[in-house]
């Protein structure tokens, strides 16, 4: 039985090694002139721990690396266009949700998953998923230790004058230049979200899930969508 499992595992690893990415590495463009630059390679000052303490993530080779907890932007946003680049370490011994896990939480509540899902059939908890809400349209992952890009359009939830939610938030996402989420409504905050209620504005949160994922070129354009 064990040898069968081992053979299956080896096959799974081999088939992943042989996978060809659909996406291509994307060149970095400078931020648009109306962007709020959150991380340009040196200072992590735009971020803090959720309790307001300074951001403990360290800066390595112009990137910021996960360490010491989730971080949130000091500023809050409503609707926005977000760009960021991420780098997942190669963790050959790890599997599933332990394999290079992190995440981008819009308003601290709605997660676009980051994970080493290269070569897999993407499900609703894989990289590019709106976590446990929507699998990506295509597996647009690049292999670990490659810089990847997310370009996200976020339409914040809408509320009436009594503060009742009238429209859920919506997300469109490109990963490495490929459309992976198309104007998807997010019916509820996703797992491990920041402890706060849905609101017209909120911070951006980057998740510490125990893996040394790196981020760079983080900017967003605050928008007012119809």
């Amino acid at each position, binding site marked *: 039985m064990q040898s069968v499992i081992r053979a299956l595992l080896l096959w799974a690893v081999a088939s992943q090694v042989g996978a*060809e*990415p*659909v*996406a*291509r*590495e*994307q*060149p*970095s*463009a*400078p*931020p*648009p*002139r*109306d962007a709020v630059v959150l991380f340009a390679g040196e200072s992590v000052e735009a971020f803090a721990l959720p309790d307001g303490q300074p951001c403990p993530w360290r800066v390595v080779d112009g990137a910021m690396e996960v360490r010491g907890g989730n971080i949130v932007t000091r500023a809050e946003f409503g609707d926005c*266009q977000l*760009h960021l680049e991420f780098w997942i370490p190669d963790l050959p011994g790890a599997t599933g949700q332990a394999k290079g896990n992190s995440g981008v939480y819009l308003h601290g509540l709605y997660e676009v998953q980051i994970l080493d899902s290269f070569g897999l059939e993407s499900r609703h908890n894989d990289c590019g998923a709106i976590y446990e809400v929507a699998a990506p*349209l*295509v597996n*647009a992952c690049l292999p670990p230790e490659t810089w990847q890009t997310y*370009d996200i*359009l976020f*339409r914040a939830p809408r509320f009436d004058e009594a503060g009742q939610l009238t429209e859920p938030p919506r997300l*469109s996402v*490109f990963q*490495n*230049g*490929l*459309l992976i989420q*198309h*104007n998807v409504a997010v019916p509820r905050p996703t797992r491990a979200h920041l402890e706060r209620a849905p609101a017209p504005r909120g911070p951006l949160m980057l998740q510490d899930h125990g893996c040394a994922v790196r981020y760079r070129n983080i900017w967003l*354009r605050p*928008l007012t*969508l119809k």
Partner: protein
Amino acid sequence: MRLACFLICLWLAPLPAQSVAAPQPDPAAPPADAVVLFDGTNLDAFRKANGAAPTWVVADGAMEVKGGDIFSRRSFRDYQLHFDFLLPPTGNSNSGVKLHGVYEIQVIDSYGKAKLGAGDCGAIYSFTPPPHNACLPRTQWQTYDIIFRAPRFDGEGKKIEAPRVTVLLNGVWLHHDAEVPGVTGNHPGAKELPEAPVMFQDHGAAVRYRNVWLRELNLD
């Protein structure tokens, strides 16, 4: 006094760089699942309106408008479309991409314009102006990334859902799943169809295109 007037006028005038866009880097290769419509070498994926081979000029990895509109030989339904364009240095700069041959996303020089209309670059032509000026100067290659969800029809051929577009110009998000109310511009008799070719417009200007590809999607 005259100098003071001049300075005040300068101060009141809109800044010359009325654009939020940053220069774009050289493009990456098309994704592996893309239908490449123009790779820099030939126009085999296109035809003229009458079916004849296009007469656009292929040079330096680009195709330049000449001798009429061109249509993709294949028809498509929903897709992600990418292309780069370069406007001529002076004069007329008008062209455009018509999704399904009838829904135009405008290509023209609108760099530096403070107030944009439905005829400016980034507009859903004749319907929706771009909310920001995302243009670059004529000397620079610019990029469009467009998501198109085709109109939907019932069994009798009646349109039941309008087409929708998402548009990024030079990486700046301009339209998000926006409804296109009908055929753009004044084209009585133009047909809306479930599947149709992509058209690049000859509007008399020597606009160049390169790196033209699309990925078929199912946005049901």
